[in-house]
């Protein structure tokens, strides 16, 4: 299927009409993934389906859910002598309680932007006199590549590379939102890239335990519209289920090689999320077998010596945005104080952040 076909305006209009016809009562759907939030606003889908179909953004922005103490720890690592911190670019501008990685870099800390964890591994090979810490940010999408760098470093006997794993799992986050019961949801648009790895069967707990449907979606307009149609159809029929509306990428079982790689390197434990707090069994940490590549082990003393993080900036409501409780324009700081050029919270920084999406693709 070509991309042009996935953006066919006639088909898109027809699907939108069909959805509005099927949605004979107001429904509330959450798109888990920040990439979906951006696409929904960019292609005008949200406005076209309002008001009967309400689309709420979820916690699927890896940079946004990274908790302030973890950002502070990343900055502290970057300030250590002979340490290079390698990170995806978005992280640079996220405010911690004592500045950003970008400020630390301007003050002399060695922070490098990488596009993939493999670049960080290359950096460690090229600069053996420095210790390269890869900030392991992201969900099941990025975790397999990071895991691959660890097994590779281990195979090569590389001694100057470690991963500060802040990787998080999407399922437990979705569960935490539903358990909290703050936001009433009729359905979930499942994350396309994550589900490519974990397989769509991973979402079966949504209909089984919570009685709500999940439609896994790609990132093109027709992908999203088809997923929304699946959801309103399931809601109308009163038969909650998981549908795969991204079959060109997603299978029932997912990518077993990637899953095996994650299972080889990581163990699951409780993790701190911005907005969600401490979520049980939601974080990926390095197994003891790979302790040599675990930043938490290699720099345990330095990390333990960190002063506690200051509270998050007054007025920033990223946490509520990440739980789908608050829409970005409802935040008093939005557009007035908090802008992409001067972000107060991470949701305005990241390319996947909901506030950045609402700012960038605002209606006239």
């Amino acid at each position, binding site marked *: 299927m070509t991309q042009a076909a996935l953006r066919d305006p006639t088909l898109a209009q027809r699907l939108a009409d069909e959805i509005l016809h099927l949605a004979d009562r107001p429904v509330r759907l959450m798109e888990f993934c920040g990439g979906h939030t951006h696409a929904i606003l960019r292609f*005008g889908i949200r406005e076209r389906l309002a008001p009967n179909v309400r689309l709420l953004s979820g916690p699927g922005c890896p940079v946004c859910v990274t908790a302030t103490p973890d950002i502070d720890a990343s900055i502290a690592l970057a300030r250590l002598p002979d340490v290079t911190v390698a990170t995806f670019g978005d992280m640079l501008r996220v405010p911690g309680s004592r500045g950003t990685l970008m400020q630390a870099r301007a003050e002399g800390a060695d922070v490098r932007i990488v*596009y993939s964890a493999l670049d960080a591994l290359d950096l460690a090979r090229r600069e053996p006199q420095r210790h390269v810490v890869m900030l392991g940010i992201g969900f099941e999408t990025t975790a397999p590549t990071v895991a691959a760098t660890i097994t590779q470093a281990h195979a090569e006997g590389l001694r100057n590379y470690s991963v500060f794993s802040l990787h998080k799992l999407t399922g437990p986050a979705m569960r935490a939102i539903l358990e909290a019961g703050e936001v009433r949801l009729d359905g979930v648009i499942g994350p396309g890239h994550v589900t490519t790895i974990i397989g769509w069967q991973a979402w079966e707990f949504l209909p089984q335990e919570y009685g709500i449907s999940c439609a896994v979606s790609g990132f093109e307009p027709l992908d999203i519209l088809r997923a929304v149609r699946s959801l309103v159809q399931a809601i109308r029929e009163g038969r909650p289920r998981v549908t795969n509306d991204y079959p060109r990428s997603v299978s029932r079982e997912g990518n077993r090689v990637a899953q095996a790689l994650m299972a080889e390197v990581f163990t699951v434990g409780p993790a701190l999320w911005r907005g969600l707090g401490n979520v049980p069994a939601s974080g990926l940490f390095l197994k003891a077998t790979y302790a040599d590549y675990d930043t938490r082990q290699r720099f345990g003393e330095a990390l333990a010596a960190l002063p506690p993080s200051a509270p998050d900036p007054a007025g920033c409501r990223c946490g509520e945005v990440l739980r789908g409780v608050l829409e970005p324009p409802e935040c008093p700081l939005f557009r007035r104080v908090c802008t992409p050029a001067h972000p107060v919270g991470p949701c305005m920084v990241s390319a996947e952040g909901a506030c950045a999406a609402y700012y960038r693709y605002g209606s006239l």
Partner: protein
Amino acid sequence: MRDDLILLGHGSGGTLGHELLRDLFLRHFRDPVLACLEDASDIALADERGLGGQAVLTTDSYVVKPRFFPGGDIGRLAVCGTVNDLAMRGARPIYLTVGFILEEGLPLHELERVVRSMAETAQEAGARIVAGDTKVVERGSADGLFINTAGVGLVPPGIRVSVSLAQPGDVILVSGAVGDHGLTIMTQREGLQFAGSLQSDCAPLNGLVEALLERVGPALHVLRDPTRGGLATTLCEIAEQSHVGMVVDELAIPIHDAVRAASELLGLDPLYVANEGKLVAIVAAPHAEAALEALRAHPLGREAAIIGRVVAEHRGTVALRTLLGTHRVLDMLAGEQLPRIC
């Protein structure tokens, strides 16, 4: 050349430096004015036909990774960038200057490849390289090779093209598909293979501008090349500086399939990705079709399209009509676009 790497000595005033100048720069940039090796070059503010006009002057510096990419290299980019800045004022580029900052250890054959490419591109644009400079810095003080170019151009009498001259009612054109250059660079950096289907559009645009001016003359109000920040940022800049609104039809904007595919993969919006061989033209409505024909008749404008119009409403803001028929703001980018990780 005896040694095959740039040495610190190449930057000294001594023999090595003179060898570099004679055997590399002058050999490729064959210009009698440059060859005089004066401290400052004699230039006449007239073109080869002896025609004068309002002079315009610009300068820009170039750093790009990788230095060589499908469709171009840092040298071609450095010439096109400055030539195009001149052309965007309606000017014919006449003279260029070139400054190099070289990192110790740069392979000489790489430098030669860049210099040759610059000479060829300048010739393609009909501009003369008449002054230059070279500095060599210690290993680690620069990333291989930085280039600065400056240029002087002449605007034909009666022509006034400026970013502040868009009028409500005018029509917005783009000279071809957007996003090629930026996506080529990004996929190269990411090591993604698109089997040669992606190529930078890097090209001197002065010929295309001349063809456009010949056809519509003073009906041409604004020209701008959507380089860094892409088409979206360029349109926002024009709307702001001309104090007008714009309505652009997303479906009318030409984008190559390979660019769409690569941008979907990386999670980037091609409207915010750099172009190095495209222009946005804003013309008075009665001349829009003629302008489109003139662009399409030129090899660099075959895929030109009318993408929208200038309006008196929502001044300073560009509205994008989406494929679902809704309208949203097309905003400037605050920082760099980054590939998604989710």
